[in-house]
């Protein structure tokens, strides 16, 4: 299973970015896709109000340790995806957030050297090879490759399209 390398600009934050920062209370209520999407501009409002305003399609989200600690709310990675983030790198992840990223089709890679990345660096991330090229600093960072069953799910676009395919095959 392969996933094309993703090139973009890094938005770099520190340790312990929790789900309340990513999807604040009140930002993800409602029963429709439109209502949920309307909350995305609230992402990180308490930490960096410029993030949601400045982030562009194809950008890359980078954090330190424990990215996504807190609640199981899927709005946290979904808001990143809706704002245009195409891949997430962190020194390590909280387990539910990590699964949520992959389930919604947003590649998430653990990168021991994520702290070396600076805000605004240009990166090229290859989820299949498990590497991140820092084009600004001209250095290659090793990431933990994803197991095959998760690469297969990502290649389908996430858990739901993956399930749809499986269920169709079964029918």
């Amino acid at each position: 299973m392969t996933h094309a390398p993703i090139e973009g600009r890094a938005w770099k934050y520190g340790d312990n970015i929790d789900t309340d920062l990513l999807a604040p209370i009140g930002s993800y209520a409602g029963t429709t896709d439109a209502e949920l999407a309307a909350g995305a501009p609230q992402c990180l409002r308490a930490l960096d109000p410029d993030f949601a305003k400045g982030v562009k399609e194809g950008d890359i989200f980078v954090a330190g340790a424990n990215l996504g600690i807190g609640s199981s709310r899927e709005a946290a990675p979904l808001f990143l995806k809706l704002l245009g983030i195409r891949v997430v790198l962190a020194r390590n992840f909280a387990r539910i957030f990590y699964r949520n990223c992959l389930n919604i089709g947003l590649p998430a890679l653990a990168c021991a050297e994520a702290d070396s990345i600076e805000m605004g660096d240009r990166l090229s991330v290859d989820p299949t090879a498990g590497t991140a090229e820092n084009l600004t600093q001209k250095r290659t960072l090793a990431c933990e490759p994803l197991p095959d069953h998760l690469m297969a799910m990502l290649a389908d676009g996430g858990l739901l399209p993956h399930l749809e395919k499986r269920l169709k095959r079964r029918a």
Partner: protein
Amino acid sequence: MGDMKRAMTLSEKIIARAAGKKKVQPGEIVTCAVDLAMMHDSSGPRLAGKMLDELGVPIWDVDKLVVVTDHYVNLPDETYVRMQTHAAEWCKSHGVKHFIQDKGICHIVLPEYGHVRPGLFCVGADSHSTTAGALGAFMVGIGASEMTGVLATGEIWVRVPETARIEVKGRLGAGVAAKDVVLKICGEHGIMGFDYQVVEFCGSGVDAMPVEDRLTLTNMAAELGAKTGIIAPDAKTAETLAAWGAGKVDVKAWRSDADATYAKKIVIDGAALGPQVAAPSSPENAADVAEHAGTKLDQAYLGACTGAKVEDLRMAAKILKGRKAAKGFRFLVAPSTARMRERAAAEGTLKVLEDAGATILPSGCGGCIGMGAARLPENAVGISSTNRNFLGFWVEAPKVSRARTA
């Protein structure tokens, strides 16, 4: 017998059974059949339910699904009323048998209504789903898409976690409870101190604990970075589960083998432990309450799945009997569940709290997630019995400390 049998921890035994295997090893990826799935009004019908409908398949087994409303309850806002109606209608149209509306916080309601039993493999679409582990079940928190997968197939993949053993040596002293144990551990080992491990609590301090209080130990496994928490069931577990309508349970079968392998073993001196308070904005900022002596408070919130069960309310009542909250100080109490409110009212505990100046709020998650009457005003300093104190969790001002109130 004579066959070579690898000793297993309680969690490994449950995962192996759910995966249809004789044994499993930490690190191995297996697919498990789900015995019980729980979702609430935030993660459930409006998200996982909607995605299930988009897939166009039915719920795999309506006997094994419990839907609880606790997040968007008692809020006088049109959006929330609409969400409640949506949840109720979705459950009705999908033949959901176990729909528990407005009766309290899902993690306590789930066992209180007899759904949790030792040995079950369970998932819940909420991060504190780890709570059920206190009754000898293996339960993990998942997101809404993952729950959709479970609703559609009844299965989920799991990387078998290592188990860390936390022994609480010695009975806890007066005014000290499970919450203090977890905050102490979190302060020493950090909020990701047990990353992807199962924390198994044991020892004389746990044996002596009421089952209600044990639920707080496993609830806050989430604050230790653990995949989940678990406690081997004993006679007290069986007695509590019988009272909650779970029927007769097998407590002997569900325990770790004596020679099981643990990733680490930690011992905490329960008898020497004092009350803990975690300063803003992480539970790992825990310290002895004495370090915060003299802090002026504007509000106290005795609520949540961690801190407002009957045992917790009794502890607060014992301290507050005959006392009165200062003028201008907000003292808010939201019992964890409606049934617990009834029990606390019947025995006079609620009256003691009300006499001390408490406003009794409806049961639900509102106070914890900064919604409803318990929301801490901007720039106010509060103390609470909730499990988290992240920036933005209760308020978006860093001036908040929280801990068990008693």
